[in-house]
């Protein structure tokens, strides 16, 4: 699996920006908690995206068949902290998806729902505390287990066992927060010859903490999230939502918290998108979450 020249340039560009940002960065909510030994937590997160905008490369093109795709994913996420430097996490999605697809020049409606692929991660962290600044470097190997169904004309999973690796740095002060996370997923070939292609991503979060009350431990946290993705083109027999291409999304995140409970809402719009050949835009994205730690 040798990346082509364009992929390589994109990767080098992301990596150079990552290391440039590394010296100045900070962190997000499930990343910062629970840091304490034997702490654990859960987060329920609803994510929605999709559109009826047909793209040819990075330009909008006409869509006479009314093609569209909408995906709703409910994530149950959990974390256990053995000690501040060692955690284990899981993410279990429940997917509800529908689309209108071009099949032999006919608009065909397809939909599917069910449990998706289970992801396990082992974040290994190196923390530094210096006065009112705390930061950490994180190295996270992950595995995606094909628990989702691969059958039907609009499968939830391609049925492959995938491997991921992430490097991140986050930094936080009482007022500010930044996170830079660079990751890569190796998507192996799954059932029926489906192969979604590898994914390279970079997430950057810039946060501000306008209000905190020490007496009741409540507050408000705001962030700007910027996500860049490069997805290799899936092969022709892949029937999942994977479409391949490049995109940069950005948008605001609002978080309210009290002690160990956190509410989060996030909206991301597409700042840039280029689809491989002709395909549907990912569309804007909304997610809302509630998290609790113990």
């Amino acid at each position, binding site marked *: 699996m040798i990346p082509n020249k364009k992929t390589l340039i994109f990767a080098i*560009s*992301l990596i150079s*920006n990552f290391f*440039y*940002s590394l*010296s*100045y*960065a*900070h962190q997000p*909510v499930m990343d*910062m*908690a*629970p*840091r*304490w*030994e034997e*702490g654990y937590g859960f987060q329920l997160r609803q994510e929605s995206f999709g559109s009826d905008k047909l793209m040819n490369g990075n330009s909008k093109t006409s869509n006479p068949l009314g093609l569209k795709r909408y995906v709703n994913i409910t994530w149950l996420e959990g974390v256990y902290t053995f*000690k*501040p430097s060692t955690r284990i996490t899981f993410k279990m999605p429940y997917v509800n998806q529908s689309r209108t697809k071009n099949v032999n020049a006919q608009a065909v409606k397809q939909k599917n729902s069910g449990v998706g692929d289970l992801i396990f991660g082992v974040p290994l962290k190196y*923390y*530094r*505390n*210096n*006065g*009112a*600044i*705390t930061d950490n470097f994180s190295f996270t190997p992950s595995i995606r287990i094909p628990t989702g169904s691969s059958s039907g004309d609009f499968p939830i999973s391609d049925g492959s066992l995938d491997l991921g690796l992430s490097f991140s740095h986050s*930094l*936080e*002060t*009482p*007022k*500010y927060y*930044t996170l*830079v996370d660079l990751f890569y997923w190796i998507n192996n070939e799954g059932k029926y010859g489906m192969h979604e292609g590898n994914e390279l991503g*970079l997430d*950057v979060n*810039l946060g501000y*903490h306008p209000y*905190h009350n*020490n*007496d*009741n*431990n*409540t*507050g408000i946290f705001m962030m700007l999230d*910027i996500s*860049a993705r490069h997805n290799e083109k899936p092969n022709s027999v892949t029937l999942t939502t994977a479409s391949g291409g490049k995109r*940069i999304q*950005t948008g605001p995140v609002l978080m309210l*918290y*009290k*002690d*160990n409970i956190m509410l989060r809402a996030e909206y991301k719009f597409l*700042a*840039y998108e280029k689809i491989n050949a002709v395909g549907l835009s990912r569309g804007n994205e909304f997610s809302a979450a509630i998290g609790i*730690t113990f």
Partner: protein
Amino acid sequence: MKLLQIISIIASIIFYSASSYAINTNEYNISLNPNEVLLEVHGIVCSFCSFGVQKKLSKLPFVDLSKYKKGSHIEIEKQRVTIAIKPNEQVNIKLIYDSIISGGYDPKQAWISDSSGKITHYDGGK
């Protein structure tokens, strides 16, 4: 990639702003009630930090849970932790340090006020 460069610049500004938050212990104006411990704890800057440390401290047998929130009060802007101690109980500063370290933070120094209000400085480092 202009967007990523802009992000890097914004992150740089945030970092340099954050540097101004480095604690200066000389600015501490120590004022303690009898039977309290005050600690300077590096890295304790967020709500979850407070929750985790309070949770650990509340398990110590000599902490007076009837005062503050589960026996402690945390000021994230100043990295200060104030712990209420039960009257006539002996403070074990090592247990306090161990609790904070297991919470993921670095206690740097402490001031212990006994039942008469006399303050003792403990510079135990980590």
